[in-house]
């Protein structure tokens, strides 16, 4: 078994299935399970329908916001881990990786328990509301005008907010780890030299830390953006009717709609977009290095 060349494994488990899907995307649906390979472009043409383009756009939008939010949240975390005492650094890293040890489905259901109308967040908010209410009453003020007569739970679940929140939660480690890797590699004397030359901590962060961590930032952006773009479970479980992403549409083509050719076409469009993002990254890093040399 182990003597089989890796090329065979790659062919059997990767290239052949992918080629099949690629062929399906040029096929015509005949009956329940039959697909005729007619080299039609109709599936791709259908994907250009504004309905689907809009979902593509929405997927980009969600993935983009998720990636940006991940970057903003992950940077302080990565810095904190880098500068933590070496004894507790492995523990902090473990905490970042720990979610990977739990099934995504279970983690998503846990998020539902946190965000739903009678979830932990709303419990917390209600507790605060009660407290505020009591204080206002104590001072003889009428709370109904200020904070409402009754506590109304915040609608946190089954909407776009829940999807982005869930995506950030799921993808945060993908951003923290490459950032940490590049910060940890960074020679501390660059930061010390900057402080020594009169720069404030904030200025040092902007002028030295961020540019030197750029490879990590770009890696983090890409490996967060790509899986976020193809997310299926999170929008499916946390989203409302208008927050489905492209992967949900693809899933439906393969299952309930039973339109494999169209699902295949959508899959490949998503894949081409991913390749395009990676190519843009390669171009960016090449330009970056020629800029260094110039």
């Amino acid at each position: 078994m182990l003597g089989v060349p890796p090329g065979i494994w790659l062919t059997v488990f990767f290239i052949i299935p992918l080629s099949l899907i690629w062929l399906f995307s040029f096929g015509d649906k005949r009956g329940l399970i039959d697909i005729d390979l007619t080299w039609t472009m109709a599936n791709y043409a259908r994907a250009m329908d504004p309905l689907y383009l809009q979902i593509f756009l929405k997927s980009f939008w969600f993935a983009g916001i998720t990636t940006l939010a991940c970057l903003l949240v992950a940077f302080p975390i990565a810095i904190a881990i880098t500068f933590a005492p070496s004894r507790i650094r492995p523990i902090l890293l473990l905490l970042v990786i720990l979610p990977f040890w739990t099934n995504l489905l279970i983690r998503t259901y846990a998020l539902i328990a946190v965000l739903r109308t009678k979830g932990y967040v709303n419990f917390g908010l209600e507790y605060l509301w009660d407290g505020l209410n009591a204080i206002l009453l104590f001072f003889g003020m009428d709370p109904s005008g200020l904070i409402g007569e009754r506590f109304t739970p915040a609608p946190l679940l089954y909407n776009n907010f829940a999807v982005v929140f869930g995506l950030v939660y799921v993808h945060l480690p993908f951003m923290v780890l490459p950032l940490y890797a590049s910060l940890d590699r960074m020679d501390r004397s660059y930061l010390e030299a900057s402080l020594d030359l009169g720069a404030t901590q904030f200025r040092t962060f902007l002028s030295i830390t961020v540019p030197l961590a750029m490879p990590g930032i770009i890696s983090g952006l890409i490996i967060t953006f790509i899986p976020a773009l193809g997310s299926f479970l999170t929008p499916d479980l946390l989203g409302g009717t208008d927050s489905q992403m492209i992967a949900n549409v693809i899933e439906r083509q393969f299952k309930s709609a039973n339109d494999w050719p169209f699902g295949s076409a959508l899959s490949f469009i998503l894949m081409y977009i991913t390749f395009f993002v990676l190519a843009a990254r390669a171009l960016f890093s090449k330009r970056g290095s020629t800029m260094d040399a110039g």
Partner: protein
Amino acid sequence: MNHAKTVIEISNVSKRFGSVVAVDDNSLTIQEGEFFALLGPSGCGKTTLLRMLAGLEVPTEGKILIDGEDMHGVPPNHRPINMVFQSYAVFPHMTVFENVGYGLKVTGVPEPTLREGVMAALDQVQLGDYQDRMPDQLSGGQKQRVALARALVKKPKVLLLDEPLSALDAKLREAMQLELVKLQNTVGITFVIVTHDQDEALSMADRIAVINEGKIEQIAEPRTIYEFPANRFVADFIGKMNVFDARVKENGDSITIEAPDVGSFSVSHPEDIEPDRINAVAIRPEKTRLTAKRPDDSLFSTEAQIVNIAYHGKETAIFVEIGQGTELSCTVPNTSRSQHLPKTGDTCWVSWQVDDMLLLE
């Protein structure tokens, strides 16, 4: 040189990292315009002391005054001090010009003044034509000049240099030593250099502090450090030294030194010495002489057998055995091509002036 004004005053400074004592209760003053070296083996705490001056480490105890001001709680970016890092820390994503200008830019110096300052600093380190280069196009020596210019452009009261020459090859190192001294004379800024290289410290510094295990062993001018080391550590660390256990007896105006492995000597009583505390005598290899015949009585002499010879080009190190198995190292300068060199196994006389011997605690 004008040694009128104290620019750095370190009093009873200690630094502990957990249970490790890196710097142990040291006091030291450095004068304005001085070229001062902190010299010691690696891990002796000299870099920690330097980093405390820069504000990159906070002393556990003690006080540091720079230009008369207490530096307690003053962050590195508010100290009138700049540092050249051992790794140079030249920012890899900035050109030479941007690197040198960084310290001015972040403090809001306007563009024309900045350009003028940067170009003057680059000229000072002879990198005037390199302003648009990126650091990865520079050699180690050029990067160091950039780091130097970047610190000098800030016109600091004190320039700190952490092992500045350790990454350079021998030839360049020697050239840079001279250049640093010249530069220091031109700019008139106080230089404090950390080094483990005694040649570097001896040749460049006005004064040297020899540090061992976090404690300053001796502060003096290079020649004093070499010729009159304060104790056994300094004697052993600086240059080569033959050290022998010895005891000293007082007889009125003179003292008698008894070194069981070598012999006994009588010398006039030095003023600044407590005979009870002396436990060793020492003689530098180059202060000994090797002769075929017994020299006259003004020198101390003893018969010796040559056990090993190491030729170093400009000099030859000859190891001889005196008495029962006591080895002594002698250095003979190779002053002439026709000079006769002894061979292993030869017997000869080794001699030195008793005054050249050191009494060590």
